[in-house]
């Protein structure tokens, strides 16, 4: 007898977006389950350090300013209707999180305190020391425990399933602990499985960030959008690429070149270190390339902030610099360099998380939703502002959860045969049965990571990206033959890593194709062979549809402009 689970709404991923979506769907009164390849509190949302943005009117802030700065940060590629919703609903969501138990930093009068973050004129970033993501994630998981929502931990989703009408009907997954394959039927599936950082090497992202959700949506028929938009964070540790939060600069830290100059003066005289991330990262790399770096890095100097501020508000990066770079931030500046951090692109959704086209019809897969880094509304356009990603997860996680819940109420249970499980079992058996070769999954992954960093990093051009495209195709060929040496059923992480690499190669292909397609420089996508932003031709999104045989089908969608016409972007 085949195992099958059945719920109204199934959420794939248990980070902030997934848990928020699950809670919202639960509140809509339908049955909900969460399926995740790691325990919820191991999710990468943990790594968000600095905070979460909201313009609260009772503090003299205006949501319009937050929205405008987000649009400007996106280099005018963000869809302004989505950005307006984000900025308008932010305050309510922050208060909801506080009521759930998040221990936000307080002012002397006992109210929530804020700090400044990049690309914004006002201090509107709410925070918990410098582990805001962890604080939020643990509290949302507390709420999930309280609501007794079923969580299928350490289950690896391999594909979406659809019924005979192409309607989303759930997922197929295997339990990592036992190797057992099962069908999870659902009337609506919300993909909230995070980003794809490991496609690049190094990256600030956790080892689990392998683009599973993006690739599964893509293969399932959903369009991917703006995949070329890859954010480099200005302050990462060289080598492994661990992140040092923007909170440091938010609190007032300086960036210095090897000559001790605050070089941001040359690049962003008004905002200095707190210009948008794409601008600061490029500035750093130019300094390094022109010989004013030291050892491939510039310096992040916190010393003038004083020990008390560093200990209280930057405790985690203080510990991190000590553990991983052997530097005491209170005594010395720490060498940092730009590092791959976030994917602005992802599965195209509307403002309710639906896989919808602009005319309000399902495109690709009816019943499929997404939220968080996996999704692309697009909110962040060409460049995301710091502390907008946590906000994105809670606002649009909530909206996707509620909408999926309401949608599920109108739908019958999907009719899916057992064949999908059999197919998956056979697929896994075939992979495990591949004959041994010299090649390894790890080697292919490292080559992919290096290729992407070299050719799809801060500076790109036609030649490099074309070469990368060929390399990735070759790696795909090698993946088709590579053997898995662990043949077991129980906790076979070799198999998991091979399947993750399969997903990552899809991501690498679409990022590269997106980069080659967009012949301008905008936000994080900077082409040395097309230096300028080209609003006449490229104020639009690049969409890609998967085709099983042959290259993806490309499509374009105009950017939605509500009130902010594109201007020259200076900081």
């Amino acid at each position: 007898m085949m195992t099958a689970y059945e719920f109204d709404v199934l959420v794939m991923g248990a980070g902030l977006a997934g848990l928020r979506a699950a809670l919202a769907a639960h509140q809509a009164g339908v049955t909900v389950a969460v399926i995740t390849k790691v325990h919820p509190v191991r999710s990468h949302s943990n790594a968000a350090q600095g905070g979460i943005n909201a313009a609260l009117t009772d503090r003299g802030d205006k949501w319009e300013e937050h929205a405008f700065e987000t649009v400007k940060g996106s280099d005018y590629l963000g869809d302004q209707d989505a950005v307006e919703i984000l900025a308008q609903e932010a305050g309510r969501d922050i208060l909801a999180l506080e009521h759930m138990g998040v221990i936000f930093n307080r002012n002397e009068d006992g109210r929530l305190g804020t700090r400044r973050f990049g690309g914004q004129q006002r201090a509107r970033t709410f925070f918990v020391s410098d582990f805001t993501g962890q604080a939020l994630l643990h509290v949302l998981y507390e709420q999930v425990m309280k609501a007794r929502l079923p969580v299928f931990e350490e289950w690896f989703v391999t594909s979406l399933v659809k019924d005979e009408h192409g309607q989303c009907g759930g997922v197929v997954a295997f339990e990592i602990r036992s190797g057992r394959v099962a069908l999870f039927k659902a009337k609506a599936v919300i993909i909230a499985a995070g980003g794809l950082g490991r496609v690049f090497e190094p990256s600030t992202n956790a080892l689990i960030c392998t683009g599973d959700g993006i690739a599964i949506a893509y293969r399932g028929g959903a369009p991917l959008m703006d995949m070329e938009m890859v954010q480099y964070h200005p302050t990462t540790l060289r080598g492994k690429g661990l992140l040092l939060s923007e909170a440091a600069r938010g609190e007032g830290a300086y960036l210095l070149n090897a000559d001790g100059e605050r070089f941001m003066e040359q690049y962003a005289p008004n905002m200095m270190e707190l210009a948008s991330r794409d601008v600061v990262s490029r500035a750093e790399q130019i300094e390094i390339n022109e010989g004013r770096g030291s050892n491939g890095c510039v310096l992040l100097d916190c010393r003038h902030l004083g020990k008390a501020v560093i200990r209280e508000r930057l405790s985690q990066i203080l510990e991190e610099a000590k553990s991983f770079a052997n530097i005491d931030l209170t005594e010395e500046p720490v060498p940092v360099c730009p590092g791959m951090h976030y994917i602005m692109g992802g599965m195209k959704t509307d403002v309710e998380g639906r896989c919808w086209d602009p005319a309000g019809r399902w495109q690709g897969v009816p019943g499929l939703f997404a939220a968080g880094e996996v999704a692309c509304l697009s909110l962040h356009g060409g460049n995301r502002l710091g502390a907008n990603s946590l906000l994105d997860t809670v606002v649009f996680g909530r909206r996707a959860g509620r909408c999926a819940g309401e949608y599920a109420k109108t739908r019958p249970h999907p009719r899916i045969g057992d064949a999908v499980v059999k197919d998956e079992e056979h697929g896994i058996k075939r992979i495990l049965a591949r004959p041994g070769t010299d090649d390894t999954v790890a080697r292919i992954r490292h080559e992919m990571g290096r290729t992407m960093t070299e050719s799809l990093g801060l500076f790109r051009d036609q030649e490099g990206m074309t070469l990368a495209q060929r390399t990735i195709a070759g790696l795909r060929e090698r993946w088709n033959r590579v053997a898995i040496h662990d043949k077991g059923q129980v906790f076979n992480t070799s198999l998991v890593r091979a399947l993750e690499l399969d997903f990552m190669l899809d991501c690498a292909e679409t990022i590269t194709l997106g980069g080659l397609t967009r012949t301008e420089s905008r936000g994080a996508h900077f082409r040395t062979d097309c230096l300028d932003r080209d609003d006449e031709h490229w104020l639009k999104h690049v969409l890609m549809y998967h085709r099983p045989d042959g290259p993806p089908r490309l499509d374009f969608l105009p950017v939605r402009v509500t009130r902010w016409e594109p201007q020259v972007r200076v900081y």
Partner: protein
Amino acid sequence: MLTTFRIRRFNPESESPQPYFEDYALVTERSDTVLDALIRIRETVDESLTLRCSCRGAICGSCGMRINGHATLACKTKVAALASSGETIHVEPMNNMPVIKDLVTDMAGFWEKIRHVQPWLQPTGPEPEGEYLASPDAMNHLTGVMGCIMCGACVSDCAALEVNPDFVGPAALAKAYRFVADPRDGSGSSRLTALNNPNGMWDCTRCMECIEVCPKGVGAMDRIMTLRAKGIEQGVPSTSGSRHTEAFAEIIERKGRLDEPMLAVRTFGLTNFKQMFSFLPMVLRAFVRGKLPKSGPLFRPIPGADRIRRLFRRAKERP
């Protein structure tokens, strides 16, 4: 530098599933963590080596394991700090939980105990329009406990859990403390009453291991001690644990040294015949060997006991 890693392996699917040790020699760099080394072994020597890991930055809590006999995060442990002169590094799965495969343990029981303390905010009264008002100090204090990443290191090395697997354990108690100390939570006294039960806060034997091994400085044992103090303060029904604590302090205050038979009597009650009888064989053995401790009026306060009393007074006067 060539470093040897002696790793405890376990494959439940092998013909005779028994744990065994396997040695791997690896060239390591100064900057390498034990996690870097394990990943390199997995990628270049033995793909089947199984462990959990994700963030590499001591924030996700996945790579809890025992290294050289103590639980820690592999990503936070530098190889060079342990093997500067070529020592072998021992790597084993966490203790006090079943092993699934190699370094991967089953943490279901861990989470069961976390759930047991009802780890969610339980405010009383209507929700405020805006945020709850709370002092910055109270919130800053809580960030210390919220730093817990649920890696399981404290539970792995808890001595009390090794003896009594039903003990709720340091991680769950630290989590409970996080709510008891939260000015927004309204269920403090019912939480304390629940923790007062057997297997709760009085089962900690204060061995300090949880403080020692915690990679995030949560200080579980200190939190447990505060829970106990709050329990006594708020007058939750007395248990042998709380009576032990109070009697201990009172005897020392009076005599300047411990009167052990009196402590037992005060803890369990003279009329607790079952418990008192159970001590008899031990008392007899101690008597035969001439080690029966003196007690009662025969056991005089030490010289200078008044100075100890003064210390107690001063401690009590402190705010």
